[in-house]
C-alpha cells in the first residue's frame, strides 16, 4: 500500500512528458536538472510503477513511460504545488491529501479533543504534531488494515502525555474512526489520557515518563533477532530526559549497535513547571547523546522537510542508534499559545474559536 508520495516521486510524476520517452532518459533529465542521484529516482520510479501511478516496460528496451489514470489524477493534484514536503500528497483515511492540509487538520483536532475532554497537555501536543505526521504519513512502514503486521515499523510515544496528538494522527491514518476522537478521556472510551496498547495502532502503553526508549530498544532488538527490516522510532520530551532510565536505555541501544532505532527529542525548551534551562539544564544536548554512543543531529521539528531529511539521514547510520534533536515551539501553530502560558491550559470556547480560525 502506498502511504505517501515523496518529493522525488512528485518530481517524476510532474515531469513525465506527453510524448513518449524512455524512463531512463526522463529520469536522467530530472537527475541533471535537480541534482538528484539517478539511483534514487530509479527507486522511486519503481515504487510509482508498483503502485500503478506510472507504467513502463523493461527499461532496457526503451519502452516509453506513461502516467496511468491514477497517476494523472494525482499529478494533477500536485500541479502548481512546489515539490516541497508540505505539498506531498499523503494517503489519509479520506484519500490522498496534501501534507500541509493534513497537519493543519491534526492541530485542529488536537485542539478540539483537549477542549472537549477538559484537560490535557495542549502546548506539548502541538509541538509534536509535525513529527508525528511525518512519521505516520510519510516515513513509517505500517498498515492501518493490519495494525499487528509483524514487520511494520514501530513507534513509541515516550512523552505519553501528548496522546491526543497521537490519536489524531492515528485517526487520519485510518486506525481510529474520527467520530471517536472526541471521546478522549471519557469514561469507558478506549482513548485513554495516556497511550494504551488496547488502541489499534498504539505500539506501547506509556504515560510514566522515561520508559519509552527502553521499550523501543526491546523492539529494535527483536527486529534484529528476527532479521526483520522493521525500524523503531521513539519520541521523547526534553524534560523527560531528566529521567535516568532514558540514559540507561541510551547505553543499552549503543552497546547493542541498534542502527534500526531512532529517538526524536521534542526540544521545546519547556517542561512542566518552566523552561528546561531553569528546571534542569540539558545543554549541550547533542554532546550528551554523542558521548553515549549515538549519532546525533538537529532538525527543525516544526518543519516537515527538515524532519524528513533528518529521518532519512538516520536510515544511513550504521552500527549505532541515531537521535534527532527536533527544535520545536510549545503551542506551535496558534499565535497566542506559542510559549509556555497556555501550554497546559485547556482552551475555553472563545480561545478554541480563535485558534481554529488561525488554522484555516
Amino acid at each position, binding site marked *: 500500500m502506498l502511504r505517501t508520495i515523496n518529493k522525488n516521486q512528485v518530481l517524476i510524476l510532474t515531469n513525465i512528458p506527453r510524448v513518449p520517452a524512455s524512463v531512463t532518459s526522463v529520469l536522467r533529465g530530472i537527475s541533471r536538472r535537480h541534482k538528484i542521484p539517478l539511483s534514487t529516482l530509479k527507486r522511486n520510479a519503481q515504487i510509482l510503477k508498483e503502485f500503478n501511478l506510472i507504467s513502463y516496460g523493461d527499461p532496457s528496451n526503451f519502452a516509453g513511460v506513461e502516467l496511468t489514470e491514477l497517476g494523472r489524477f494525482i499529478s494533477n493534484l500536485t500541479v502548481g504545488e512546489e515539490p516541497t514536503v508540505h505539498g506531498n500528497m499523503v494517503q489519509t483515511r479520506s484519500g490522498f491529501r496534501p501534507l500541509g492540509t493534513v497537519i493543519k487538520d491534526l492541530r485542529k483536532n488536537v485542539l478540539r479533543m483537549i477542549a472537549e475532554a*477538559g484537560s490535557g497537555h495542549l502546548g506539548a501536543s502541538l509541538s509534536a504534531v509535525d513529527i508525528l505526521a511525518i512519521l505516520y504519513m510519510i516515513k513509517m512502514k505500517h498498515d492501518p488494515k493490519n495494525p499487528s503486521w509483524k514487520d511494520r515499523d514501530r513507534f513509541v510515544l515516550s512523552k505519553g502525555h501528548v496522546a491526543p496528538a497521537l490519536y489524531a494522527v492515528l485517526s487520519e491514518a485510518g486506525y481510529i474512526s474520527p467520530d471517536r476522537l472526541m471521546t478522549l478521556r471519557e*469514561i469507558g472510551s478506549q482513548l485513554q*489520557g495516556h497511550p494504551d496498547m488496547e488502541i489499534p495502532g498504539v505500539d506501547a502503553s506509556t504515560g510514566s515518563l522515561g520508559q519509552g526508549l527502553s521499550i523501543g530498544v526491546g523492539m529494535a532488538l527483536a527486529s534484529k533477532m528476527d532479521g526483520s527490516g522493521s525500524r523503531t522510532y521513539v519520541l521523547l520530551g526534553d524534560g523527560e530526559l531528566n*529521567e*535516568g532510565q532514558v540514559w540507561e536505555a541510551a547505553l543499552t541501544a549503543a552497546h547493542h549497535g541498534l542502527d534500526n532505532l531512532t529517538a526524536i527529542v521534542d526540544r521545546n525548551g519547556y*517542561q*512542566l*513547571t518552566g523552561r528546561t534551562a531553569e528546571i*534542569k539544564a540539558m545543554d549541550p544536548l547533542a554532546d550528551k547523546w554523542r558521548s553515549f554512543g549515538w549519532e546525533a543531529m538537529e532538525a527543525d521539528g516544526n518543519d516537515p522537510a527538515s524532519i524528513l531529511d533528518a529521518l532519512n539521514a538516520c536510515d544511513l547510520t550504521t552500527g549505532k542508534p541515531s537521535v534527532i534533536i527536533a527544535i520545536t515551539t510549545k503551542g506551535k501553530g496558534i499565535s497566542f499559545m506559542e510559549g509556555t502560558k497556555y501550554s497546559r491550559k485547556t482552551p475555553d470556547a472563545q480561545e478554541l474559536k480563535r485558534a481554529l480560525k488561525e488554522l484555516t
Partner: protein
Amino acid sequence: MQTKTASQLEHFGRALVDLGLIHEELVVLDPDVAASTKVTYFAERFPERFIRIGISEQDMIGVAAGLAASGKTPIACGFAMFVACRSWEQISSSVARPGLNVKIVGTHSGLSPSADGDSHQTYGDVAVMRVLPDMKLVVPADAPEAVEALKAIVDTPGPAYLRLARGETPVAYAEGCEFTLGRANVLREGSDASVIANGVMVPMALEAAGRLAGEGISVRVLDMHTVKPLDTDAIVKAAAETGAIVTAEEHSVIGGLGSAVAETLAEERPTPMERVGIMDRFGESSRSYTALMAKMGLTSDAIEEAVREAMKRRK
C-alpha cells in the same frame, strides 16, 4: 445533598509555608510538578529552601536522604505514582534502612487523577510503603486533617509517607482538628458494625452510616488515618463491640488498609469483614472523578452494601 469540599493540596501547600516559618531546617524538593502539588507557595516564600530536581524522582529521594543526613528535614513531594512507586526501592534502601528523616508526600493518589487514566492512578502506594519497617504512613480524610497530619509527621523524627488526593474532596473535619499519629478517630459511635476507612472514603463512610441509622442500624465509623503504626486496639475494640467490620479505602483491596485490618483481626479477633476498595483491577480515564469512583465501586452505597453483608455474616 450539598457537601462542603476543599482541596487537600491547597491546604497542604499553605501549611508547608507555616511550617517553614517554624522549622528552619525544612526544605522542599520538587520533581517538576510544583504547580500541581501546590508546593509553589513554599517556593515563593522560601526560594532558597526550595530545591528543583527536575523529572527524576529517584534522584530526588537520594538527594533528600543526603539532606536529611546533613540535618535538614526534606519534604519530597510529587505524584504518588512516581514519588512513592517509581522510587520505592530508593526509599527502602536510602531512607528507610538508615531511618533518615525524610518526609515523602504522594499527591494525585488513588483515582484522583481520573482523567489521566491508569498510568497516573495509584492504588498500590499504601501497599508498598506499608511493607517498609518503621515507616510512618498517613492517609488523611480531608483537607483539614491533611494539615494536621503534615504537622504530625514533621514533628515525628524518621521516614514518613503522606498520601494526598488531587482536587476538591468532601470535608469531614474542621480546621485544627485533633490528630494523633497512630490513633484512629472514632467519628461516629455504633454497635451493629464498624466501618474502618481512610482518605476520601471517610466522608462516604459517614454518609453510609447516616443512611443506615435511618433504618435503625447503628454503625461505628473509624477514621484510620494512620495505616502505620496501626491502631490495632481500636480495630480489636470495634470488632469486639460491633462484631462486623468493613474497611473502605481508595486503594487496592490488596496490601493496604483492608489488608492491615484483616491481618489484625485474623491474629487478634477473627471477625466477619468486607473490603471496599479497588477490586484488584486497572483504572481508566474518566473526565469525572465521581463517575470513575462509582464505576470502580468506591461509593457510600458500596459501603452500605458491605455493612449489610458483614452484618449478615455476624454470629
